[in-house]
């Protein structure tokens, strides 16, 4: 771990700027107003149907893991990646392939191996596979910066999707994989929705802790310095490449974890869950919540999923136009949010 050099004025100025961002110095009025709306929406859903609220809550927590991990890259290190969904998919497919135990496979013309391993044994593998892929491509991606990095991460998302779609011997291609295992400890299966929600929230807690640890450590300060001025920090002898690779891999592993949870929760996945659009949504969640704010990413995921699911309750729409009308309202709300709070719900920086 790098130590923090005291004698340099430029770094000290940087540090002062950064530590300022931790203090909640600004008026928190907007934050509380936003929170109030979200809590009201969540409460409303709980009141109307607890089961529905729980399943929405589970997706919120999974998206929150993704958003927090992406924020490590986008917010804290300044690497704008739109390839995050690739790692999410790798985690999901690892979980699906290793735990799926279908009783029937009418279209399975190739004899695919069935592993049927337990969930908790596979979850670390999901993270490991995502991490290994991240190392492999990270070595190459590290050569790129700024706009070019966005483009290559875009390329990664497209390639990942096409691998899911076309490597039929492994992923069953467009048919998807079903009968993915739910977690079980001995005889106790996490079949109920509440147990699964608690499990996901537990992992979200771990991810948040890990992120908090990273961004407050000296490692995190170097990441912030990379975001502010990569050359400057390199001049002081930091191997920028190593730091970027490390955070890239950590972030990918967290996305792999989210993927494993997602596959297990839906029990069915196909490549359509891992299209590029999901990545764009994820980046919007991070920006919506606020760059370099863990809390902001969680809030962003909540706001986004609750807005979208809340649209199901908008009344007075003729049935023929329901789907489209909801999309329009959602889009308008997002535009309004960005107009009034371009720095995100609790963020400090604009992109």
């Amino acid at each position: 771990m790098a130590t923090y050099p005291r004698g340099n004025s430029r770094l000290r100025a940087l540090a002062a700027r950064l530590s300022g961002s931790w203090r909640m110095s600004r008026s928190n009025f907007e934050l509380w107003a936003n929170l109030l709306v979200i809590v009201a929406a969540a409460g409303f859903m709980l009141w109307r149907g607890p089961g529905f609220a729980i399943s929405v809550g589970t997706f919120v927590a999974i998206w929150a893991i993704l958003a927090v991990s992406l924020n490590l890259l986008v917010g804290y290190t300044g690497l704008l990646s739109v390839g995050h969904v690739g790692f999410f998919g790798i985690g999901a497919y690892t979980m699906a392939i290793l735990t799926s135990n279908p009783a029937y496979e009418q279209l399975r013309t190739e004899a695919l191996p069935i592993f049927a391993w337990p969930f908790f044994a596979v979850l670390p593998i999901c993270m490991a596979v995502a991490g290994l892929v991240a190392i492999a491509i990270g070595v190459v991606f590290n050569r790129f910066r700024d706009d070019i990095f966005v483009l290559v991460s875009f390329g990664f998302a497209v390639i990942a999707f096409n691998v899911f779609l076309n490597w039929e011997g492994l992923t069953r291609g467009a048919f998807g994989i079903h009968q993915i295992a739910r977690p079980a400890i001995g005889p106790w299966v996490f079949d109920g929705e509440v147990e699964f929600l608690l499990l996901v929230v537990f992992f979200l807690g771990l991810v948040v802790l890990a992120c908090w640890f990273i961004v407050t450590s000296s490692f995190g300060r170097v990441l912030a310095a990379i975001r502010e001025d990569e050359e400057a920090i390199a001049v002081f002898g930091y191997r920028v490449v190593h730091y970027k690779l490390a955070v890239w891999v950590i972030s990918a592993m967290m996305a792999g974890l989210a993927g494993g949870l997602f596959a297990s929760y839906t029990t069915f996945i196909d490549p359509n869950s891992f299209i590029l659009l999901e990545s764009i949504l994820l980046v919007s969640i991070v920006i919506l919540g606020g760059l370099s704010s863990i809390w902001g990413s969680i809030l962003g995921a909540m706001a986004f999923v609750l807005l979208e699911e809340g649209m199901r309750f908008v009344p007075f729409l003729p049935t023929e136009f329901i789907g489209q009308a909801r999309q329009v309202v959602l889009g308008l709300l997002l535009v309004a949010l960005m107009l009034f709070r371009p720095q995100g719900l609790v963020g400090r920086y604009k992109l």
Partner: protein
Amino acid sequence: MRLLSRKWVVPFGLLIILVMAVAACNGQGDKPFRIGVMESLTGPGETYGNVALQAKQMAVDEINEAGGIDGRMIELVVEDSKCSAQDAITAYNKLTDVDGIKIILGTSCSGAMLGAAPLAEKDGVILFSGLATNPDIAEAGDYIFRTSMSDAQLGVDTGNLLWADGVRKLVTITEATDYAEGVRRTTVAQFEKRGGEVVGAERYASDVTDFRTQLTKLFGENPDALHISAQAEFAGGTIVKQGRELGYDGPIYSEIVAVGKTALDIAGDAATGMKAVVADISPENAKGQEVLTNFQERYGEITLAWYLGSAYDDVYIAAECLKETGDDQDADGFRDCMYEVTWSGAIGENYSFDEKGEVVGLTNVVVQVLPAAERTVDNQGYNVLGSAPSE
């Protein structure tokens, strides 16, 4: 900007709460039968989903105008399942948990169906689709029904047709989606079982618009016939057009997508003579023709004729079973009724459901595309040659 934001956030929040509160109160009155509908209203399957929803709404309005079921109206509660497992799960939970619905008509996409089916099976909720064709759905459970025919049936019929027409060397071009790929696999399986040989196979992603390279490669194998399996009409029509432009003059076989209206418009005269195995509303089926006429009148345009008929029939079958059980909360009674019911509607006569919830008594037909000048709205651009050869 901050001041503005401070001023507006509270009224904005209150507005959302108000809207939701109004939504909460919006559901009182006399007691209609409440049926859930899950379709892909946005996203990749939206053409299918919106047609299905329109057909269902039309059927419900007809039933309600005729006095409902023993005086009780039908009310549809519509949710968007977006062709994805995740959205199908939240849509399903919203319908069952918030609206307390036990009978759901949907979905339009197999992926969404396979996402929600395990939940429906566990909770004992009916999931009844008019459009999902993935063969795996047959095994999804006791509460899962469909009037759409499995891809497996279509593949067997197409394989037999190819063999009966004297095709021995086949090349295939397929869109990489579950439907198109399912059609290709089952077709090829049956064709090879009969003794045929597949000498070339190409796949394309859904956003591709130029197929010349792939087609040139396929035609280099000197095939007896080309089989097209597409998910989108645009691609289906373009393949036919580009194939003929490359000088291929052998027979072309396909399924319903490549003989859809948009596909035929794109292909023009290149499609003339092309054969397809489709689920089709027979011209002799008076009920089917009446439904199409009404649909044309109400919405101005007919797309996916068979699927809209299927979605339309689903509502009437559901109404029949609701009449018998008299309770929209009685999913078990509804399920038992479904296994008993024999129905004659828009898509066929005297069809019923087997022990897997699969429709039996419907058949595919072979159609041949007419020259561009002879295509009309009434003949949909093709001649019906008769039912597919069995052996």
